[in-house]
């Protein structure tokens, strides 16, 4: 059993091409990469929407705003 497309490093080096395992299954790796990318955006959109809702419910108040403004007045930047 070998996942490699070549046998060893002692033969003719000009005959060695791809060196990664499972040569011939690149289309599947591409598909996995695409699915991972799209799925990540969907997960993240759901997480972001949930965070905004929770923060709005839990933390947005006049007291919190006053505290934020007080800090900005104390350290206004340059």
């Amino acid at each position: 059993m070998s996942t490699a497309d070549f046998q060893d490093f002692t033969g003719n080096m000009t005959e060695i091409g791809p060196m990664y395992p499972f040569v011939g299954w690149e289309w599947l790796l591409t598909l996995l990469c695409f699915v991972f990318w799209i799925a990540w955006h969907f997960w993240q959109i759901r997480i972001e929407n949930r965070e905004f809702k929770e923060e709005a419910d839990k933390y947005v108040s006049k007291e919190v705003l006053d505290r934020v403004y007080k800090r900005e007045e104390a350290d206004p930047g340059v």
Partner: protein
Amino acid sequence: MENELTSLSTIFTEFYYWVTVVFMFLIHVGFCVYEVGVSRRKNHMHTLMKNTMLVPLVTITFYMFGWWIYFAFPNGPFIIGDLIAAPWATPWSELMGTHMGGAPASVALSADDTASWARINGVFWAAFLLFSWTAASIVSGACIERIRSNAFWIFAVLIGSVMWIIDAAWGWHPDGWMVQKLGYHDAYASGVIHAIAGGFALGILVVLGPRIGKFRPDGSARQIAQQNPWFTTVGLFLIYTGFWGFYAACNVPIIDVQQGDGVFFSATNIYLAPTTLSAITFNFLMSLAGGMMAGYIVSKGNAFWTYSSGLAGIIAASAGNDLYHPVQAMLIGAAGVVFMYNLHHWVEKKFKIDDAVSAVAVHGYAGFFGVCVAGFMLWGYPSSPNADYAVITPWGQFAGAIIMFWVLGFAPAFLVAKLLAKLDVLRIPAQIELVGLDISQEIEAEEAAKDVIGAERDKARAIGID
């Protein structure tokens, strides 16, 4: 590789691009530090992560389709010809992985393909990828403190893995249709990276709107102060540093440029026309100097604008920095800064555009200016070693600048921003903008600190310090 000379030049080229990639990584470090320095404390962490996460997202999408676009789209496609086959750049190609350059396993590739691309594909891909991060990162700063991270990441993929690489195929490929037909010349990417990114940022900002409180009821702009000037300073110096790598990466380090009989080895620009690292080093530094000196004067010594003007100076001269005299580069850098500084303030006042880091000005206006000026300065120069291609002209460069800034930059960003706004996923809710994006993290951190302090007080009491 069967002889020492071929091996040396191939492995030197491989190493050369690898070094440029490491240098260019500093651009992104600089952008992250800079954006945090400009944002207010209540938004620091989200600002940082918004920029940071473009790195993996643009990387995997540039792997999947960005790299292929560069080689497949030089004809448009369908502007002057069809799609071009690029079997070494498709994500399922064996050359998009670990490869010794020997016999291909795939019938889509020839032995010449594998011998040519096995050692260059990864580092060349990475050099272009780092340009992609830069394009996306330029846009990131403009819309801080009110854009949803997810919306920005969609824009990052659009500019980083689609739009800029289309313009690279058109105007930065030795056989791009803009090079062939317009004589477009943009050696160090005034338009190809900077004008498009500036136009793209403007397209988003028009729809996104300003931060709450940015403009007074009478329409004049309020100053939203930088939170950490030292971060902005370090960030911009890191961007300068990475910009060296960017310049080097725009060259091909060593090829035979002699046509016909004979041999003459030289570095070339991206169009394979001869230049030297020495020439672009003169011009990089002189245009930086011209930009900083002009920026210091027009902004009356403002540190933020002086540093940014150094970048804008380089950007304004970049289109022709392979050919300019250093003093020409300095003067063009200075003039570009005066142009972009005044245009920024006019646009801000007239159209109420809140560009938090002046990205549209520093990259977009200075880049547009640089492409156009190169048309006059290099009028009649060959745009590439191919004698059949159009020469450089003011009208060819002006058309190129319009394509970069408005057609490939502003227009797609504006349309996608409109779509995201319609879906209500473009801008953060107003109440979150007011309390800050980091509010939950801040309160959790405060509660955690109180918890630790309580435990320490208990211990202090237990050992008699109370």
